[in-house]
């Protein structure tokens, strides 16, 4: 969408994203009191990339392996009976026993809280963690459910129709956080 590029406002550059993720990684280690017992779980799609970057940052600092997983919450959505056509289902991969562990859910943008509600339900089908925490790169407000993050990269306040897009190298070819105003048209 090069024609629309001028309408986007860059909220975080690649270096700012890196710096923010580093702080979030530190906060996760602090919250968890080390890396033992920790599992970092990213929500499809971009939460997965952010989770693996955060895990790499923790491993770099703590010189210890961080267990990772990924969660696709499509089949747990509360609007599945009403959306059409059927949303694409991505892979879920939780290769670890999560009973008694500390699970940190990582997602890109926290908005209504409905995705996190679905993720909590899905995790419960995998086991009973000792603790589940929520880390998000962007909290844009607008919650429709009583869900709050434990670790936040950046809090922003935007209009209801605006989009906050987190871009990652692996999917988008670059890393940034941009605000796309409602007038810029539908998502890609």
């Amino acid at each position: 969408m090069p024609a629309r590029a001028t309408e986007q406002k860059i909220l975080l550059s690649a270096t700012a994203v890196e710096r923010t993720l580093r702080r979030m990684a530190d906060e996760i280690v602090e919250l968890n009191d080390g890396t033992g017992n920790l599992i970092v779980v990213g929500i499809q799609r971009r939460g997965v990339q952010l989770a693996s970057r955060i895990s790499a940052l923790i491993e770099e600092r703590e010189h210890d392996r961080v267990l990772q997983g990924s969660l696709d919450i499509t089949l747990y959505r509360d609007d599945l009976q009403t959306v059409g056509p059927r949303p694409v289902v991505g892979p879920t991969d939780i290769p670890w026993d999560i009973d008694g562990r500390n699970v940190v859910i990582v997602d890109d943008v926290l908005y209504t809280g409905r995705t996190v509600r679905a993720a909590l339900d899905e995790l419960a089908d995998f086991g009973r963690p000792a603790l589940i925490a929520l880390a998000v790169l962007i909290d844009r407000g607008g919650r429709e459910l009583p869900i709050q993050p434990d670790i936040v990269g950046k809090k922003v306040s935007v209009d209801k129709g605006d989009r906050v897009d987190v871009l990652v190298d692996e999917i988008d070819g670059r890393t940034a956080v941009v605000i796309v105003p409602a007038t810029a048209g539908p998502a890609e």
Partner: protein
Amino acid sequence: MTSALGKDLLDLESLSPEQIRLILDTAEPFKEISERAIKKVPALRGSTIVNLFFENSTRTRISFEFAEKRLSADTVNVSSSGSSVSKGETLVDTARNLEAMRIDMVVIRHGASGAAAFLAERIESNVINAGDGTHEHPTQGLLDILTLRDKLGDLAGRRVCICGDVLHSRVARSNIWGLKHVGAEVAVCGPRSLMPNAIEQLGVTVFERIEEAIEWADALNILRLQFERMTGGYIPSSREYNRVFGVSRERLEKAPRDILILHPGPMNRGVEIDSDVADGPHSVILHQVTNGVAIRMAVLYLLAGGKPELAEAAKGGSR
């Protein structure tokens, strides 16, 4: 508004390559659900599905039932014996009565070719064909293709030979259509008496000797001899059939490459397939069964729901 598949899944002949790929790709994440401790996701919560089986089936019915239950649908099984069907009720009356009880989907197996399409035209619920006469068995074709794709990767240019009782086989027809849609080369092999007339017109190679098929193929899909559908003397005897067309280890050892062995089950061991082949290193027969659940979950998921008018209402839309 319907899903990318439309309202029903009746056959593979009328699907596009993109639709087949959509089903196969959707089945991938569903494989993982059956590996979980709690094998259940809430995707079809509140949907009611009737499994309407006018012919005996163990594997297919159980596979559909697992798929439905793992998606949290409510299921009811109706079989011809012990229901009003045995009192002479027509297919449409049975289905309309079920629909009056507010069901969402019907999975139907019937001895008459075209029964699923006949029903689909007359009821609003989604209809999935679980085998109609000698016409098609689309979910079996799809699970065979998924299994082949798991083992061989891209199937374009790969050679699959369907062996045995092609005449009575809906599995053969679904495989031929489905495999051709994904770009595979397809052949059939069996006695002339068990080949439909003008089978070549479907664009398949015909081998009259099993040795030729083994020489040519990357995979053999070995069909069951359907004695229950054979009204005349199609073959001299099971023993004679095994001697001429049976897939044995000795025959496979002469193959120029490893050949994958598929069978839709139930097997007649020692007739169309020998035990040491069925249980051998290249057999993917149980992998087919595992994939069957994932394929059926994918089809149910893709056909179900998707009612955007409800979404508009939920948004408080102006209309």
